């Protein structure tokens, strides 16, 4: 297990370094942030001063080395727009995104797995066919469109929940989150649902496929022959086996929920990292874009590592292999 983790960490380091090169150069050769910052009233001297202040008069490799030097000391540069450290800015917006992604993941699990289980057990029933047809919609409809439709239906027409923004927050167990207030919950419902739709569909399909496959397996037949109740067969034996792919995929999808909540956050004016990123891209706030991408790279690496460890806990074969190696 230790060897396994060390090997994983070394690979991760290599990925981080490579990504820093790709991200930094990719972001820094596009566009010109100076004209996004200076006032139109600025004269030539002001513009030249702004270029020098941002260090844009230096060659790009020199800018990269400066970035790398700062990054090793935990400084990913100052936001051009806010003048604050980019890392601090992102950390400030992270809780909102985390609670949104967490809620969406919970919705995906709570809604997706039972529906998938039902569709797998009774695959011929009309309800199952309805569930599967619905999951196709979940996959194929564009998020921004669904988001606007959700707003139009639940907020504008029915008036059940607010259309945009994050509600009141409260602190519980040292965590400040909008999940702990009724107002916050009413605000998070729509964006979380919007973000979760694709993941719900994914969970339905994965669970259904797993159940269908497991039902034909020898161990299920044996359990039946042994006289176990259907309930015990499904919830203990089948579920335990099909959870391996579901946990893996959902874990990885949590990364994408965090990383790609951009569209949902923009539509629902959710003050998270995704909204920060899209604003930073539009205004060419390069340090924020670079810092954000680096953080997302780290996220994926950490999540993969956790999934690997969970995987080995769920599946003894993985542990045995590692001990053999």
């Amino acid at each position, binding site marked *: 297990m230790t060897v396994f983790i060390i090997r994983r960490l070394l690979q991760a380091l290599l990925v981080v370094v490579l990504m820093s090169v790709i991200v930094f150069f990719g972001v820094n050769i596009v566009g010109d942030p100076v004209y996004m910052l200076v*006032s139109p009233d600025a004269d030539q001297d002001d513009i030249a001063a702004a270029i020098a202040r941002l260090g844009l008069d230096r060659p790009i490799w020199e800018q990269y080395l400066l970035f790398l030097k700062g990054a090793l000391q935990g400084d990913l540069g100052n936001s*051009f727009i*806010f*003048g604050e450290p980019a890392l601090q800015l992102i950390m400030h917006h992270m809780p909102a995104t985390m609670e949104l992604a967490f809620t969406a993941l919970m919705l995906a699990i709570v809604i997706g797995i039972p529906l998938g289980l039902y569709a797998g057990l009774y695959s011929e029933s009309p309800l199952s066919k309805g569930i599967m047809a619905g999951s196709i919609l979940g996959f194929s409809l564009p998020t921004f469109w669904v988001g606007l439709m959700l707003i139009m239906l639940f*907020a504008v027409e029915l008036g059940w929940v607010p259309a945009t923004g994050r509600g009141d927050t409260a602190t519980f167990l040292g965590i400040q989150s909008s999940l702990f207030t009724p107002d916050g919950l009413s605000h998070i419902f729509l964006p979380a649902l919007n973000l979760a739709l694709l993941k719900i569909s994914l969970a339905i399909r994965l669970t259904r496929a797993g159940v269908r496959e497991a039902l034909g397996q020898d161990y299920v037949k044996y359990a039946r022959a042994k006289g176990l109740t259907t309930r015990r067969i499904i919830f203990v034996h089948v579920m335990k086996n099909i959870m391996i792919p579901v946990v893996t995929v959902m874990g990885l999808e949590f990364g994408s929920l965090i990383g790609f909540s951009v569209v949902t956050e923009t*539509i629902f*004016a959710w003050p998270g990292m995704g*909204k920060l990123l899209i604003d930073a891209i539009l205004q060419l706030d390069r340090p924020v874009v670079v810092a954000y991408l680096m953080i997302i790279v780290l996220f994926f690496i950490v999540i993969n590592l956790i999934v690997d460890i969970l995987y080995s806990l769920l599946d003894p074969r993985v542990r045995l292999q590692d001990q053999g190696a």
Partner: protein
Amino acid sequence: MKKMRAATAVAAGLLALSAGAVSAEKLTIGLASEPTAMDPHFHNLGPNNALTLHIFDRLVDQDERQRLMPGLAVSWEAVDDLTWEFKLREGVKFHDGSDFTADDVVCTIERAPNVPNSPSSFGTYLKGKTVEKIDDYTVHFKTAEPYPLMANDISTIRIISDETGCGATTEEFNSGTAAIGTGPFKFVSYTPGESIVVERNADYWGEAPVWSEVEFRPISSGPSRVAALLAGDVDMIAAVPTTDIATLEGKDEVQLSQGVSNRVIYLHMDQFRENSPFVKAMDGGDIKNPLMDVRVRKAISMAINRDAIVERVMEGVALPAGQLLPEGFFGVSDNLDVVAYDPEGAKALLAEAGYAEGFQMTIHGPNDRYINDARIAEAVAQMLTRVGIKTAVETMPRSVYFGRASRGADGDLPEFSFILVGWGAGSGEASSPLKSLIHTFDSDKGFGSSNRGRHSDPETDALIEEALRTVDDAKRQDLLAAATERAIDNAAIIPTHFQVNTWAAKAGLKYVARTDEYTLATGVVKE
């Protein structure tokens, strides 16, 4: 500038009596762009400048048409060629109870150009000016040369407190400890990306606000902003997308407020390169840059159907433009009409200039900066193609566009041949576009910094420079008008239209539309 004096003392007294009777009412406003700080000197940017006006006052105020009004200064006049005297308002208190005096002005003027990490400094407006305290309620601003626009420049600076503000960092303003002004509202909270809350300053020296508390919420996505209004999340939104205007007009529960802005959308043409990179002969070969010929530029202007752009592209929400600012602004000319749509005349003029066969070029423009910018560029290209100038369209995000349009070619020269741009006159008078767009590009004098066509006409330059030395208002008005007339006559740039801004509020509320595009809670009135 004539001496200005306001009879606000009486008004303030009356309002002080009525202030106690104002009920508790909350207003929530959905903004399209979010301010980047609560520090009024951190970032010279529209959303910041609008928001900080709630908390802070300026010596010279601008009304909804950007006419100068007494603010924390009750009057100002040029006492000699190089000195402007500002008389300050007495009896004004900061939100922490301290008195407003000349010391606050002096320290503000010292701090404003020197905020660390400022993305866009207010130094632009304070260059070459020194401030001196004469007594507690009098200050002198001095310049090395006669300077008529002192009050306009000073109107960009928000006054902070000597005791709590001048030594404070931007973070201290954002957290609220230093966000103490004299303005109509007091700072309550600032949560980046989420909300900014201010509450009524019951002791305000001017007209006390109607609203007891105002919350600003940034909602950048246009459709979401409209939905937030319809769902009742917010009471008013700024920057209604033109595509939604017709739908909202039909709804009883929504009221629209519209007003022309100080922003002109115009075309700039390469007038400095013999071989312009994006202009070719019809057969694709190189030709001498036809845009250097004034007849060609005029033909382009005549070929553009401004009414069609306004009606079809802008859905009626714009005004056709014949000069740099809409009527009513200081320095506009009464003699200029919108150039009439005349495709036959344009063809004849092109033939006269030797381009009967036409030529090819590319129009470049941003696609996320001005209202419907990419579609305007497409419409212009079609209109020009119709008179024989085969025009291709290339649009790009503003983050890429402005850098290339300003200094994308070798030697930091403008890269494109024919571009669509806009200009908002922040000072609210005609010297702003004349100085930056029309005057010859001149780094030493700081003129022509946005002259991306590098138009250059010594006579126009002379008129502009003389206007910028002339303190007498009437004379300066004539000089600015004359410079504008000459620039339009030379087709230095081709204005197409003035942007009209739209705010939408729930029924019963109306917004007093502002030409500077600011969204101010003080402008939201009940009907």
